[in-house]
């Protein structure tokens, strides 16, 4: 490459530090958002996997109880009667720290002797001087994760208070579990104790499951035995439905981050094409001097490569920083959803950084390709005038607007014909965005034309100058408006989606929670018939609903059964698809109802049969309908309590809804209920208001990350508009100088510049409203349904719309301020000299 050409290119940028900085920062920000989300997702994913494998060890299969936990005797039988070689009993349960009740931990009760041969310590490594058999010989002892020890400042032989339900219990720490995985991979190890200690701690005589190492034929043998009340599951499938949810959530985030990158691409394109347009005269002269096309192409592409590389490097660094805060949010969200154990962020693989870097540089090069080719095709000396260039841009823009028609059709077809695929849903969404983007430059031109007369009337010819300036520099205003519109529409679309979702959840909660107080327990035999009768007899209580919750394993993962006898105000269900009289038929034990996400995921419709493992073996239940459910437990089955009791032989109750008389003295009734509950400390008391509040606060926390991404998208948009407007105004310097010479005073120049930039902002804001609503519709009716199986209806609240338009306007006005100040301050005389 010719050194003088490089010198010329370098000086070009060095003389315009503003332009260079904005270009670099814009690209960096786009890359940072993408890389940040990608890294955060990856960390979260790996942390989950590590947790899962930590808990499972090298287990291949698990025997789990279908209705209740497994009795101890089965474990003995496995060895003695059925000749299974590798089996280990496990209790897995959750506790909270007494000192910090929000901190949930997983307890793993194991047989330490078995553990040596069985797991080969593949899932946890005892810390130094930890004696496993001591767990057996000394009751009430446990091994604590090293990280927890140092976090709580505990020493060996210290006591630790744990909350089981609401009861505090003490354990003594006799050793540690090494957190090898915390540094390498990130998950917090579980608390380990002997199985007998665990049974005592949780006050149970059963085990959660039996871990097995089986080869395929052994597994078949065991299945053919058809053991009562247990199910043999593949250890890897256990959390399949959770994984699916987590994946769907992460896919959503990735799509958001790609959107940020897309806006970044606009920025890159705008920047590079501007740098070429500015030098079209220079390129013409160079061509006349004998520089050939390839040389020019090489120079411009190298420029893009260098700028892109520097910016991307910066973006990857920024993305790394961003990931640190995002990963917390992602884990909080997905962790809240699906895992009880604490999941710590993991160090992501270096490959992701490399991927982000390559993507950033490649994107820059691709975006710069068109302007670079343009530069290479400059005819010697016949430098095209700026106005001619803009006229051809106008033609291209009009053609692009036409192309958007078939693209939108393709999107419609895609969305109409695929009903389940999330990926096709996203492709459809992106096609819609692409189609609108192509429309925007022409729409901007038309908009400017429409407002021109009004502007001319209010500001005279300088007003019409402002409007004309927009279509006169369409090659840049078009791209800037498109970038800003997409970003603002994203902000609006997500805002509408989240607010609609929140309203749906709120309504659903109010509809579902018909009782005034909810009592729940995880212990057994707390709510006997007589106890419930006593409760009903309390002055001011008009009735109760009683519920049995159990988790049942199925081939498609664990499901929750909610067996209920409805209270005086009915079931509080909102049915989505149902047979006529579905609820009455459920009450008369004709079948079951399934939650909407479950129906969606397994394609269940009214009339289908769902096989469930019962105490009497596998039974098929008729599905009478599906009901709205925003729980994230992987799927719920609702049936009448009597149907459940028939098949599961289980009289236990773990949830009671209490209905209060609105006319009686509420305070008094509540205090009587509280006195009544003193006998049973494991019962948790929650008022409906409390549940509703808490659920919504969890909801808000879940969507905090989308908020963050919204802000980032807004920031990228702001920068895009800022740099585009800056470059437009800088290029108009000579024109502004002429106007100054003709007597336009600084104030008028200010009006001219600011009205032009705010006009662009207004245009973007206005275009973003329909696009944002379309995005919200797609997010609600396509993406969310396909990700989570949740249906909700769009609520067009004005706040997200106003916020979007204000964002666009503010960005554009702020972006207009510097060029305005510059236009007012500069020295007229030198600007009038020849270029």
């Amino acid at each position: 490459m010719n050194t003088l050409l490089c010198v010329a290119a370098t000086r070009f940028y060095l003389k315009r530090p503003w332009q260079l900085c904005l270009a670099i920062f814009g690209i960096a920000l786009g890359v940072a958002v993408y890389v940040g989300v990608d890294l955060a997702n990856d960390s979260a994913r790996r942390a989950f996997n590590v947790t899962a494998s930590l808990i499972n060890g090298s287990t291949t299969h698990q025997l789990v109880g279908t209705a209740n936990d497994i009795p101890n005797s089965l474990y003995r039988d496995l060895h003695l009667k059925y000749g299974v070689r590798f089996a280990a009993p496990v209790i897995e349960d959750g506790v909270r720290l007494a000192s910090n009740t929000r901190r949930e931990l997983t307890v793993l009760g194991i047989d330490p002797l078995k553990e040596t041969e069985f797991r080969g310590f593949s899932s946890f490594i005892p810390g130094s001087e930890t004696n496993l058999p001591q767990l057996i010989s000394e009751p009430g002892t446990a091994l604590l994760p090293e990280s927890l020890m140092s976090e709580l400042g505990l020493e060996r032989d210290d006591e630790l208070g744990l909350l089981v339900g609401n009861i505090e219990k003490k354990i003594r720490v006799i050793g540690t579990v090494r957190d090898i995985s915390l540094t390498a991979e990130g998950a917090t190890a579980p608390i380990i104790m002997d199985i007998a200690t665990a049974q005592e701690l949780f006050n149970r005589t059963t085990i959660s499951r039996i871990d097995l190492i089986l080869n395929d034929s052994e597994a078949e043998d065991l299945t053919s035995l058809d053991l009562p009340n247990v199910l043999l599951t593949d250890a890897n499938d256990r959390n399949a439905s959770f994984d699916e949810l987590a994946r769907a959530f992460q896919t959503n985030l990735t799509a958001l981050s790609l959107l940020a990158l897309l806006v970044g691409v606009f920025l890159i394109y705008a920047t590079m094409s501007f740098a070429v347009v500015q030098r079209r005269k220079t390129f013409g002269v160079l061509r006349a001097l004998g520089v050939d096309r390839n040389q020019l192409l090489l120079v411009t592409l190298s420029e893009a490569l260098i700028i892109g590389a520097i910016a991307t490097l910066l973006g990857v660094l920024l993305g790394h920083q961003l990931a640190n805060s995002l990963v917390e949010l992602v884990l909080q969200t997905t962790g809240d959803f699906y895992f009880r154990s604490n999941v710590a962020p993991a160090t992501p693989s270096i490959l992701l950084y490399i991927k982000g870097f390559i993507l950033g540089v490649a994107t820059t090069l691709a975006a710069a390709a068109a302007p670079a080719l343009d530069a290479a095709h400059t005819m010697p000396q016949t430098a095209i005038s700026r106005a001619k260039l803009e006229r051809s841009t106008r033609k291209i823009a009009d053609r692009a607007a036409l192309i958007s028609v078939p693209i939108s059709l393709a999107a419609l077809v895609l969305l109409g014909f695929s009903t389940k695929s999330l990926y096709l849903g996203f492709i459809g969404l992106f096609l819609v965005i692409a189609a609108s983007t192509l429309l925007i430059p022409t729409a901007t031109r038309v908009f400017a034309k429409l407002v021109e007369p009004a502007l001319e009337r209010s500001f005279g010819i300088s007003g019409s100058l402002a409007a004309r300036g927009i279509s006169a520099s369409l090659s840049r205003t078009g791209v800037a408006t498109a970038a800003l519109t997409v970003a603002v529409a994203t902000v609006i679309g997500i805002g509408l989606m989240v607010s609609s979702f929140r309203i749906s959840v709120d309504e659903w909660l109010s509809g579902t929670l018909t009782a005034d107080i909810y009592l729940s327990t995880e212990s057994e035999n707390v709510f006997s018939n007589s106890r419930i009768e006593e409760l009903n007899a309390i002055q001011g209580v008009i009735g109760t609903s009683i519920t049995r919750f159990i988790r049942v394993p199925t081939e498609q993962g664990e499901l929750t059964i909610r067996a209920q006898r409805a209270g005086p105000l009915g079931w509080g269900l909102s049915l989505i698809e149902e047979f006529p009289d579905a609820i009455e038929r459920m009450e008369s034990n004709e079948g079951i109802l399934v939650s909407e996400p479950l129906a969606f995921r397994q394609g269940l419709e009214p009339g289908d049969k769902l096989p469930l493992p019962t105490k009497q073996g596998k039974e098929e239940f008729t599905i009478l309908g599906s009901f709205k459910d925003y729980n994230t437990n992987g799927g719920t089955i609702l049936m009448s309590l009597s149907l459940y009791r028939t098949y599961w032989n289980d009289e236990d109750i773990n949830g009671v809804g209490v209905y209060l008389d609105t006319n009686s003295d509420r305070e008094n009734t509540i205090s009587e209920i509280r006195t009544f509950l003193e006998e049973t400390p494991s019962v948790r008391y929650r008022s409906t208001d409390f549940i509703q509040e808490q659920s919504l606060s969890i909801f808000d926390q879940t969507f905090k990350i989308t908020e963050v991404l919204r802000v980032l998208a807004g920031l990228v948009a702001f920068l895009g508009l800022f740099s585009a407007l800056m470059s437009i105004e800088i290029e108009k310097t000579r024109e502004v100088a002429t106007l100054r010479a003709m007597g336009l005073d600084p104030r008028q120049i200010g009006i001219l510049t600011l009205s032009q930039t705010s006009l662009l902002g207004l245009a973007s804001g206005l275009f973003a409203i329909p696009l944002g609503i379309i995005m919200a519709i797609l997010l609600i009716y396509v993406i969310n349904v396909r990700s989570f199986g949740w249906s909700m209806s769009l609520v067009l609240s004005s706040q997200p719309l106003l916020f979007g338009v204000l964002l666009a306007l503010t960005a554009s006005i702020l972006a207009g301020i510097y060029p305005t100040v510059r236009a007012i301050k500069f020295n007229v005389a030198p600007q009038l000299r020849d270029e």
Partner: protein
Amino acid sequence: MDVQPNNQQIQLIKVEKAYGKHNVLSNCNVNIKRGEFVVIVGRSGSGKSTLLNLIGGLDKPTLGEINILGYSLHTLNEEKLSNLRRKYFGFVFQFFNLIPTLTALENIRLPMSLNGISKKDSINGAKLLLKELRLSGLENHFPDELSGGEQQRVAIARALSHRPEIILADEPTGNLDLETANEVLDLLNTTCRRRGTTLIMATHSKEVMGLADQIFSIRDSEIKKAST
């Protein structure tokens, strides 16, 4: 701003202009009466454009005083200066400097519109000028659709359109062929004479010097009055 036209419409008293250490103009005294045709000559880089910029209030002198139409420029703030330029000055630049996004007609209307002349009147005035300058039929062309001579004629029309007191022309024919140049000069001269407009022009053209009332020649940063 009301102006009492006095005998000395433009006065430069001991004006000095330097860019850093480089002295472009020193001890420069100039008096110009209303309606005069003044030509400024000098070699390239001698300071002709600088002088015109100083008179037009586009640039400030390092030392000395400039009085235009009875105002001393250094007492005026930016807004008042803008006002002065808008009402009393017309500029013709060497490189035309037409606004690329406005048509020929609109470029000519611009100063009238800035001075509050109604749309209808400004269109009529502009059309008249277009006709006078033999530009009829080109009103809706954008600057890049005009030849160099046509662009310069539009620029002249623009400078004349609001009937300014003073026209500052900086080598208005430097980019034109000889024939067109003469035509353009003739136009400027006759129109200004007819209207009694002061015309100050930087040029190299010998023919022009013959028509001038006063000729100033700049050499080694000194201004000398040359005989006509």
